[in-house]
């Protein structure tokens, strides 16, 4: 059996975080090479500081200075660092109880070898030369009995940027696969539900109404009817087609469900519900397993379809 088609799907965004008074103070102080905790209702000093007490849920406000040195309370060795981790060489993730704190902070220890790591090992922060107000202002911890670098002046931070990048491999379903391979040959392959006899394009693994596999394969022509549409005038981040463009629901002849595609070759103000359209294919050498093989739809010149012929597809 051939493997279903797959393609990379990369999703990334630079999220922004407004910090509020507690986290703002913590990260501003990191920028100043200082570590600040907060005292809870039971007297414990929490590092990083908590915004709300874990016992009473009350808002906490008594900041406490702690040192940038401490002791390893637990650790795990990372022989092969992954993308986005603090160090690009083997290191330890460790729970570090800073001197003056009652709770442990998770950070990296640049220990060189797991032989150097032990519960109870003394460590100190290695401060980054350029600090922005982030937990990564501590580049990592290092094994040492000595004090860390002294505090320095720096401005307050109220916001941080947190880039999130996700790398997926998107696989087609076994039902989608023949549909996508058909597109590579310029064919439009749909499937019919054996119970309700509705024709799905693109095909589904199962009929959403009857819950049975849609096993009957049929080929459709590349002509159809615009059921409804909108004109996209708004630009937005990640947009692939420059606006304005007409995003239209196309009901292919013989299909029972419309799909969204691009409509060109007509001024947006002249587009109509019921307009008859035909596919405009990209040059054959550009074809791949995608609906983008159809560059767009354009008016076919036939008379508009009567409203009753597509009204049940709105």
């Amino acid at each position, binding site marked *: 059996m051939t493997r279903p088609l797959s393609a990379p799907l990369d999703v990334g965004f630079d999220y922004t975080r407004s910090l509020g008074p507690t986290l703002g103070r913590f990260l501003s102080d990191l920028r100043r090479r200082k570590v600040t905790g907060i005292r809870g209702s039971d007297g414990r000093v929490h590092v990083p500081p908590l915004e709300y007490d874990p016992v009473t849920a009350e808002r906490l406000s008594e900041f406490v200075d702690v040192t940038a040195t401490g002791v390893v309370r637990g650790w795990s060795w990372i022989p092969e660092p992954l993308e986005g981790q603090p160090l690009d060489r083997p290191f330890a993730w460790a729970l570090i109880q800073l001197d003056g704190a009652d709770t442990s902070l998770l950070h990296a220890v640049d220990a060189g070898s797991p032989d150097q790591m032990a519960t109870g090992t003394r460590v100190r922060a290695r401060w980054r030369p350029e600090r922005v107000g982030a937990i990564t202002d501590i580049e990592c911890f290092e094994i040492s009995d000595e004090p860390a670098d002294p505090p320095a002046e720096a401005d307050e931070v109220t916001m941080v940027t947190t880039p999130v990048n996700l790398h997926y491999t998107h696989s087609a379903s076994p039902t989608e696969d023949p549909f996508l391979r058909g597109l590579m040959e310029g064919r439009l392959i749909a499937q019919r539900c054996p119970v*309700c006899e509705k024709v799905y394009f693109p095909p589904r693994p199962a009929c959403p109404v009857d819950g049975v596999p849609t096993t009957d394969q049929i080929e459709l022509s590349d002509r159809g009817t615009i059921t409804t549409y*909108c004109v996209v005038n708004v630009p937005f981040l990640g947009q692939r087609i420059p606006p304005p463009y007409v995003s239209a629901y196309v009901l292919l002849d013989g299909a029972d469900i419309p799909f969204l595609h691009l409509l060109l070759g007509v001024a947006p103000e002249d587009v109509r519900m019921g307009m008859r359209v035909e596919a405009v294919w990209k040059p054959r050498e550009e074809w791949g397993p995608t609906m983008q093989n159809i560059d767009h739809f354009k008016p076919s010149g036939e008379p508009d379809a009567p409203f009753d012929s597509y009204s049940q597809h*709105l």
Partner: protein
Amino acid sequence: MRPAAVVGTGQTHHAAKRLDVSMAGLCREAIDRAMADAGVDWSDIDAVVLGKAPDLFEGVMMPELFLADALGAVGKPLLRVHTAGSVGGSTGNVAASLVQSGVHDRVLAVAFEKQSESNAMWALSVPTPFTMPVHAGAGGYFAPHVRSYIRRASAPEHIGAMVAAKDRRNGARNPYAHLKQPDITVESVQASTMLWDPIRYDETCPSSDGACAVVISSEPTSGQAAWIRATAMRTEPTTFAGRDQVNPQAGQDAARALWKQAGITDPLSEVDAAEIYVPFSWFEPMWLENLGFTDIGQGWKLTEAGETEIGGRLPVNPSGGVLSSNPIGASGLLRFAEAAMQVMGTAGDHQVDGAQVALGHAYGGGSQFFAMWVVGSEKP
């Protein structure tokens, strides 16, 4: 099933960017107001239910984990609810069911969104491989279906602008609303930029940071109570052959079940105020029909006659609605809370005189999740 009531409501000041607070601080602003309104303390709360829309909006997977202490959930059950844009409504219904069933006596329901942390249009338009990248956020999704409604109902073009002008004027009476536009007119809405034809800029909800909280209890904790007379939720697939995208079956079914449970036979006569999820203006007449307030194709006539204004036969969104504030995850719970405020008589400048029965409504996804409740001033 024993009676349950909303005994306190709270919400944040909603804004495009609430850069003064963290996500935890945003939630607590609403929670602290709701608990003060109810006259309860943390020891009175038995369980917490959190609602929030897709995690991609803030880029925080399972925010309920890191928010547990801020939500006062330590040592208590904490549930996360997720039904896309309707989640705030579903959160209210889940919290209500925990009290109605006798599992808990007092439950805190919280919902939030901090849209400024990312960009919802981006998050709702991630291009899936093998497809045509024509998707353009929620507006691009709903605009074709709005066009279908206009055609099917033969509705005049100015109805959408009337809804937008009304809701924004109402928002100006709500101290917590994101948008306050007391001077907006039908003409100024019609003159605004066409974003996703047929939806104009002024007919579109804003992008807001905000939160909402309600305390639901088996017994009143202070003088006020909005008794929950009925709740309903229904779901359908996003797409299937023959699906009615204008008047979805799941919404019709939920409404029918809701009115039956509430003992309401003529919603238009028996409901005094409605907070309906209207992120794009035309959804007011669409949902008036879907909810059974009018016959099919007649919803816009109620709007056009001015009957959905404060002072009309059925004031719709006296708070200003989603068109005035849209912290997505919280928007549904805001509808539910505002309905409760109406029957408790605590809605201030946007109070509907003498409101005794009110509807809270939310929908989400591609109009596939529906959640609603009816609250009343009388104990059932």
